[in-house]
């Protein structure tokens, strides 16, 4: 009896959102106890990253009624994490973040099950990611986001009108923080811009000219980068620098101090050395909390349909005063990652050479001198000569066979287009469908039998 009272009180606030109809809800919203129960039973959510944002996300999602969570992170806990990654204690230092975070949240929030994965995101099969209704990202690198984005958008299929097929849409909610600044965004592949559509949003990393480092250092950071990029190789020929090895870091720090003394530069400290080398920006717990709260709320809204979702990019800036803004970015319709690609129907007998000729005459493409790539294989490369020679023999083979006899797949082509007498280089995604490919396979099987 006591237990059921507790249970009821925990979902009381959530019930107000999930059990009652509303005017701002998504068209698919069907309020009721069934929805609440489904949310707990079926909504499996992946949290990528168990660091500053990841800890917040796991806690927030668990407290928002989600019961099936998984978390993936390749890092181990460090002492410097403890100020904000509140799920970790001093005795956890050295243990995998994913495992400790999962255990702590499960201890605290009854009924939630969190499966930890202590590995790199690339270590998992693509199908691992297919299992989740939504992927929530609490990452700190462009590379990792780009990878997950490619995986999630890879599931997306379009119908013959270039409309995304709903069952293949794998939404992502992406959070990011840097000091006092943060963002939360909702990526619905095929509908809102994917990570790659707006990659230009990320500012390039500041890099100092090597000759400045070598000759005319002016700042503490110059001295540190000198020790890290130039001096290290000079002294440890062949040994790669490991930013996670404290011995290596100490060596760089000591060398940077010497360099700074030589040029009369102040301010080289061990923590600045770590900051410069690992590109660390001081993390602020409250920024993580704010961004995570926004991400969790969007996740709940996306999964349940209980309200309209963020459209589609929220920026938070607490540096001077406080600014929050939502921008509706637009999708790049030709995006190589989330776009539909140009649909082409082909006979199974078409050779690669014939296909390349067809691209030149295709009214939508007018693409000459095409190089063709299918998945991770270069079927034909126009240049340089060494690659042209290696791929030339493919030209006389049927494309259908070169692509492993699948009835439908994506290829990428690069080449030159001419529009209005102007030539421009381009990279296009094509969706190839082979006419009668299923029949051919059947025939093959019949012959085989």
């Amino acid at each position, binding site marked *: 009896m006591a237990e059921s009272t507790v249970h009821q009180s925990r979902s009381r606030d959530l019930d107000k959102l999930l059990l009652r109809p509303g005017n701002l809800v*998504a068209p*698919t919203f*069907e309020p009721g106890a069934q929805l609440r129960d*489904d*949310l707990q039973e*079926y*909504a499996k959510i992946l949290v990528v990253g168990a660091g500053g944002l990841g800890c917040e996300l796991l806690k927030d999602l668990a407290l928002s009624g989600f019961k099936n969570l998984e978390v993936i992170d390749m890092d181990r806990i460090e002492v410097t994490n403890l100020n904000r990654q509140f799920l970790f204690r001093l005795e956890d230092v050295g243990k995998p973040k994913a495992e400790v975070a999962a255990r702590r949240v499960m201890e605290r929030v009854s009924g939630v099950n969190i499966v930890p994965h202590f590995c790199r995101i690339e270590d998992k099969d*693509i*199908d691992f990611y*297919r*299992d989740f*209704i939504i992927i929530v990202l609490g990452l700190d690198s*462009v*590379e990792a986001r*780009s*990878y997950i984005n*490619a*995986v999630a958008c*890879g599931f997306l299929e379009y119908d013959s009108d270039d409309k995304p097929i*709903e*069952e293949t849409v794998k939404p992502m909610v992406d959070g990011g923080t840097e000091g006092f600044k943060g963002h939360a965004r909702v990526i619905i592949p095929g509908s809102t811009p994917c990570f*790659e559509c707006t*990659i*230009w949003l*990320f500012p*390039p990393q500041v*890099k*100092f*000219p*090597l*000759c400045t480092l*070598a*000759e005319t250092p002016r700042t503490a950071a110059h001295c540190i980068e000198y020790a890290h*990029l*130039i001096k290290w*190789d*000079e002294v440890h020929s062949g040994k790669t620098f490991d930013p996670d090895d404290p011995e290596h870091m100490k060596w760089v720090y000591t060398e940077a101090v010497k360099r700074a003394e030589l040029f009369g530069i102040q301010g080289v400290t061990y923590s600045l050395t770590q900051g410069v080398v690992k590109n660390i920006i001081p993390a602020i717990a409250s920024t993580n909390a704010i961004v995570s709260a926004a991400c969790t709320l969007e996740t709940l809204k*996306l*999964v*349940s*349909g209980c309200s309209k979702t963020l459209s589609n990019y929220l920026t938070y800036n607490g540096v001077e005063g406080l600014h929050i803004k939502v921008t509706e970015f637009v999708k790049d319709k030709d995006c*190589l*990652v989330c776009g539909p690609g140009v649909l082409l129907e082909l006979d199974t007998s078409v050779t690669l050479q014939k296909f390349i000729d067809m691209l030149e005459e295709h009214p939508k493409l007018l693409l000459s001198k095409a*190089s063709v*790539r299918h*998945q*991770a*294989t*270069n079927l034909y*490369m126009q*240049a*340089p000569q*060494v*690659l042209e020679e*290696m*791929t030339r023999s493919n030209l006389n083979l049927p494309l259908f066979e070169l692509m492993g006899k699948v009835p439908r797949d994506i290829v*990428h082509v*690069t080449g030159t287009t001419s529009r209005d007498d102007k030539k421009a*280089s381009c*990279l296009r995604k094509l969706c190839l469908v082979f006419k009668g490919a299923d029949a051919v396979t059947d025939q093959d099987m019949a012959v085989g039998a």
Partner: protein
Amino acid sequence: MIRLFKVKEKQRELAENANGGVPIKKQTAGELRVNKDISELNLPSSCTMTFPNGKDNLMNFEVSIRPDEGYYLGGTFLFSFQVSPIYPHEAPKVKCKTKVYHPNIDLEGNVCLNILREDWKPVLSINTIIYGLYHLFTEPNWEDPLNHDAAAVLRDNPKMFESNVRRALSGGYVGQTFFQRCI
């Protein structure tokens, strides 16, 4: 959306029973862009490329440059390129694998070329970088030195710089440093 997911769950089970599921390596947008850059290369005959990991891995490759004018005429210089998956958001990492007496390349093979670091832009390409490297050999520049000694000699005594370069190229000592023959 949740109802949809229940349907999906069933479909997935069916699909799982149907095929064996061959894991496919995900390609990154960076790989596609490198492919484009490489298929569009327009190099002078003095520059050639090799792909040590075969025709399908274009993220690591080597470029050899054989200047046909200037101080370094006749030498062959090998550069390794390492391209990150977020290319062109980030410049490739380029190292000179041939030990060379050059004001803008140090003895560890670090190269001081602005477009490889502070001036990199995603609109630049592999082609631009190779031309940039070629340019370093035709117009070595003492104002951005990585090899301080070589830069000072070039600035103060170009004749001596020239003879030092010739000695290094044919294999020999310049000061305390030995250079392998690369002609």
